[in-house]
């Protein structure tokens, strides 16, 4: 059997991903998650359900956190996208929240961790860190099956405190 032709309907999109301008020819059905992972090899963003239930694919789109599995890639048009790959400094130095995840052992298998960190950053930026319960609530879209939740809350609390002081 020979390869069928690829779909005739494609959409040209330009956007910025982790600060770099990107031009993409998209199948309108493609998710942002699949485009990041399979076409741009940005595999730090994980697929845990592909249904918007687990949060492992969380990225920042236009400054807001989104589950990239439920975000059609065409929605990236003209937008700024940030993934876990952009969180550490260019020299590889960890962002304070990444360091706090390490310090508080806020991870086990590590698969949900990029999504947790992207949500944690958003949680802090949104101001949803009044107390532990609020942090828990606003991070409950990110499932950690290993159960590293105590460390995750401690890490976000630690950085939120630093942010408030600073």
């Amino acid at each position: 059997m020979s390869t069928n032709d690829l779909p005739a309907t494609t959409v040209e999109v330009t956007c910025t991903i982790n600060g770099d301008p990107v031009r993409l020819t998209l199948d309108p059905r493609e998710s942002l998650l699949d485009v990041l992972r399979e076409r741009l090899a940005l595999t730090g963003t994980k697929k845990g359900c592909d249904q918007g239930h687990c949060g492992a694919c969380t990225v920042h789109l236009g400054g807001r956190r989104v589950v990239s599995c439920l975000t059609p890639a065409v929605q990236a048009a003209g937008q700024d996208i940030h993934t876990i790959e952009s969180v550490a400094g260019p020299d590889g130095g960890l962002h304070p929240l990444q360091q706090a995840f390490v310090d508080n052992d806020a991870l086990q298998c590590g698969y949900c961790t990029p999504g947790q960190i992207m949500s944690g950053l958003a949680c802090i930026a949104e101001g949803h860190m009044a107390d532990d319960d609020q942090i828990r609530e606003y991070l409950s879209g990110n499932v950690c099956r290993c159960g590293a939740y105590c460390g995750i809350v401690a890490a976000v609390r630690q950085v939120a405190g630093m942010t408030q002081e600073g």
Partner: protein
Amino acid sequence: MRVDAYEKVTGKALYGADRVLPGMAFAALALARTGRGRLISVDTSAAAAVPGVLAVETHFDLASPGFVMGGGFGFQSLQPMTDDHIAYRGQPIAIVVAETPVAATEAAEAITAEYEDEPTALHLDSEGATTLVQEEAIPLPFLADLKVGDADAVIDASPVTIEGTYEHPPQHAVPMELNGGVVHWDGDTLIVHEGTQNANALRFGLAQQLGIDAANIEVRSPYVGGGFGQKNSLLVHIGPLALVSKRLGRPVKLVLARTQTFHNGSFRPASRQRIRLGADETGKITAAVHEVDQQTSRHDLFPAMHTETSARLYGLSAYRGRQRLVQTDVQTPGYMRAPFESPSMFAFEQVVDELAYKVGRDPVELRLANDTDTDPISGLPFSTRYVADCLRRGAELFGWSGRNPEPRSMRADDGSLIGWGVAIGNYPCNTAATNATLTAGEDGRVTVAVDGHEMGQGIRSTIALHVAQDLGIPVGDVVVQVGDTTVGTQHLTAGSWGTASALPSVHSGLRELRKHLDVADTGDVEVAPAVAAVGHAVTVHADSVGPGQPADALAQSMTGHLAITGPEYPGFVTFSWIAHFVEVRVEPTTCRIRVPRVVSVADCGRVASPVTAASQVRGGVIWGIGAALREESMVDDRFGGFVNSTLEEYPVMVNADVHSIDVDFIDKPDYRYNPVGVKGLGEVSMVGAAAAVANAVHHATGRRHYRLPIRIEHVI
């Protein structure tokens, strides 16, 4: 500290499906929509017409991988797409390969099939389910009925008796990393990137399925995004993927949809636990009977081992354990974290709680009064058993003395009923035969390749820490390689034997390395100068087996098979122990059950890696709370299979469900068990936690719950 944390927080850690290879194509599965029957026809024409589709395959020439507990390599013996037999809903009937993931998914969904349906049996009590007595069906000594004395007669003659029947639902492990990965061929060599706890079984199982030499198969699984037993053997999608990749001459990636993982991997089977206990008026337990019916599939007998732990919990003079297997129309169930021990303790430790109430004794005091140094089954001593210390320390940390024993007697300011519950748990300490290769490099770094898989438990950290402490070098100078068949055997990592099995061979390798570096047997080593003095990098091999384990276990492991021993060893028996103290609050209006705090104290021998150990226990406790209050795989009575097969409808614990979990360790080494004094931890962490929650719910509400999960409607 966790040595691979940097890779994990930056997204640099590469899991199976993170490989993006040139020319890679994407696969998707189509699944059977009947619960049991015969496949009459599969219509692939619409799928084949989807733009971008490269191949649609419905039949593969693949041998059975064999069932992992029957000397084989697969999570089940049945390999789909080899004949027209449908054994369970969700069994794959076709695989599609396309240029893009969306094209593959669209094509897979366009596949239709006609079936000749057959009646299904889906529950323990279903008509048509076949019940077998385990010791007759699988005549292996370790699966036989356990009998010491005449337990039934002792119970009948006891002044106090308690009995109860407890139902445990099926559950799914749902590790965050979906099953799947990338396969490709380099000439005649098959390379498999897939998250697994058993790279060895993938390698040798694929060799058997494909009829090729295992020397031509490489399995790479340096990071596993959670396993919990569901990734402990060869799954059914990899063989077909290997063949289709070969046919197309391209790397192929397949990531199962989350719903598909509920039917294409193992799960915790439904079980029914019937327990009878006899005691004197003080609550001293005289005898116990534990009878279990556990679900299995039609095509494999998944052995039940619930009685192994309940028999060892207390100092009993008589015990009888019997396990039966109930064949139903499902994929073969398997070893989800604390596979038998959590359901077993959920039942047994509630019965013990009931006994405490019946004789009017504090539940902690009653457990202490039933402590023992001797295994009731073998009559051998436990190598170490500090469960009494776990109970005492836990009670103190929790503030147990402030408990009013009367149910419904404690209330919070908001009107919530407060319940405090306790339970203990145990888990057998098995040992696997392992191999280690240690290399001291000219740069002073030490590389360790050893049997093991890193699935979050922190084995890489534990090994690095052990080597660093032994040689007196920075942890950062130790490189640990696990989960990769190109550097070592990679025996199954499961059953909490991973670290306790890998460390002894690493420990032995360190002694060997010191000899070859011509340095003292102990004390700090300047590795780079020592290597320079030798003139070249130094590589040594070492291996280890469990106490009394025959050395041919190593050869068994090197051909992909299980090579484990224990928990009964020559002259002693080894278990890990834990005590959980749980507070629940039942909210006044909604009756929602919350768990504001838990204290858990574990006896896992010497604590080899304090940071990762504490995280392991917290995770296990969260699993226990989830089992008690949330998790149930709902059987679809209409079509077979499981109906709540998403992370939305299969409710695992989320952040808002988890509050304070204090963890402590007894931290006393067990040098009879192994030379590093380390016992297992990951599984025992969960054992008894669900029972402690249930006992706390009883204390809060006055009601005993005989089936899980305990939901709002059960406490209204």
